[in-house]
């Protein structure tokens, strides 16, 4: 593993964003066990190109996200690949907590009263980060909820599994194109915890090793080989 370029932690219930360059590796760390990290992805060259959960799931025949999967844009390109994952199951279907959900589950708070312990929600967090780049509510899409496992039973019912959370779980994302990353650390909307969960997220940035022919994401499905080819064409034409 190459040297860390930058490492930081985001407290619970906060939001942040950055543009990551092609070839950067982002490691997310569940520092204490039980963090949820909401994430949305955009192409900085054309913000209309955004993370598409349905395309990601159907082209890899999966409901969960884990090692070997690629996160696709709606334009058939790969924003990033999951090159390693010790958690095993990440949700990308359940969306965000909202102001109403947080108030219903964990009570109302205000900045005036609670200062930085106010209980922020995922939806409004994305609105704030998106607006920094001229994006709005219409530009939001189904997000990833890193470190949150929601399984489905035979009847289609959603089952949030708190037992999947482990302190020290890591997921490593290799960015396959320049990508605007919006993220928050607000609780998963189905988290049954009695109190607003306060779990921090660690994150680290490194230079990723080159993609080799035996790469796990390139080879996990024939669809991904075609996705990587779409990225190659994109970069060939853009002069990256």
């Amino acid at each position, binding site marked *: 593993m190459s040297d860390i370029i930058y490492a930081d932690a985001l407290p619970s219930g906060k939001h942040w964003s950055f543009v990551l360059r092609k070839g950067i590796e982002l490691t997310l760390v569940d520092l204490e066990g039980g963090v949820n990290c909401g994430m949305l992805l955009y192409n900085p060259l054309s913000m209309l190109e955004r993370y598409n959960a349905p395309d990601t*799931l*159907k*082209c890899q025949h999966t409901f969960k996200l884990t090692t070997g999967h690629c996160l696709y844009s709606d334009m*058939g390109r790969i924003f990033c690949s999951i090159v390693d994952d010790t958690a095993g199951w990440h949700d990308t*279907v359940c969306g965000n907590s909202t102001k109403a959900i947080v108030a219903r589950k964990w009570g109302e708070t205000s900045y005036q009263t609670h200062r930085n312990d106010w209980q922020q929600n995922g939806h409004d967090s994305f609105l704030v980060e998106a607006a920094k780049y001229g994006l709005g*509510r219409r530009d939001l899409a189904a997000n990833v909820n890193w470190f949150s496992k929601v399984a489905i*039973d035979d009847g289609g019912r959603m089952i949030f599994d708190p037992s999947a959370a482990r302190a020290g779980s890591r997921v490593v994302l290799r960015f396959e194109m320049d990508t605007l990353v919006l993220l928050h650390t607000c609780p998963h909307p189905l988290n049954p915890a009695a109190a607003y969960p306060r779990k921090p997220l660690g994150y680290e940035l490194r230079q990723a090793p080159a993609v080799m022919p035996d790469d796990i994401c390139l080879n996990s499905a024939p669809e991904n080989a075609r996705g990587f*080819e779409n990225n190659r064409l994109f970069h060939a034409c853009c002069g990256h």
Partner: protein
Amino acid sequence: MQIKESALAPVTASFRKIVPAGDYFIGVVTKGSTIRIVDLEGNQAADTLFYSADDPSEHYSAMDTLREQGNVYITAGTQLLSDLCRPMLTVTADTVGRHDTLGGACATESNTVRYALDKKSMHACRDSFLLAIAENERFGLSKRDIAHNINFFMNVPVTPDGGLTFADGVSSPGKYVEMRADMNVVVLISNCPQLNNPCNAYNPTPIEVIVWNGSTPMEGA
């Protein structure tokens, strides 16, 4: 799976239109009206989006709909929610049993990934969505608003270990889904032209849109 028949007779409908595969439908259904979509020949996919007619920035949200009902399938009784978690429509009848909203719409670009790079010029649902909103600018919709849709009549089971399968259809000729509008909605349907997916036996077929009461939908094409 839950089957619920409708008491409404098509002869009493205020609007009927057959939509061939590869075409789109766009129109307004007013609050309190009922819209039925009929799978005329079976195992078709009707890729459908909804917008608030009064504020089209508010759109159908697959994530909010599934999470709030706690189930990944759409069936009779499902309340279709917007991205503001407001009820848009309620499924009042369904003779299929369940419908997908995880698989999204086919697009020329995703077809390159799913099937082959040289499939990129084959007709796809997203092209129909984009043509529909381009030819009907009065709705104020753009590519930003092409959210994750419902695939009426499609069967996409999730397995307990986290897999997603595109199974044989559970629909058949004449089966339908019916919804009551809980607000004034713009209905946007792409009748799927997909030729590469066995879910429709490689044979896309027409659907019918039927509306009871309310105003006659505005025609897009």
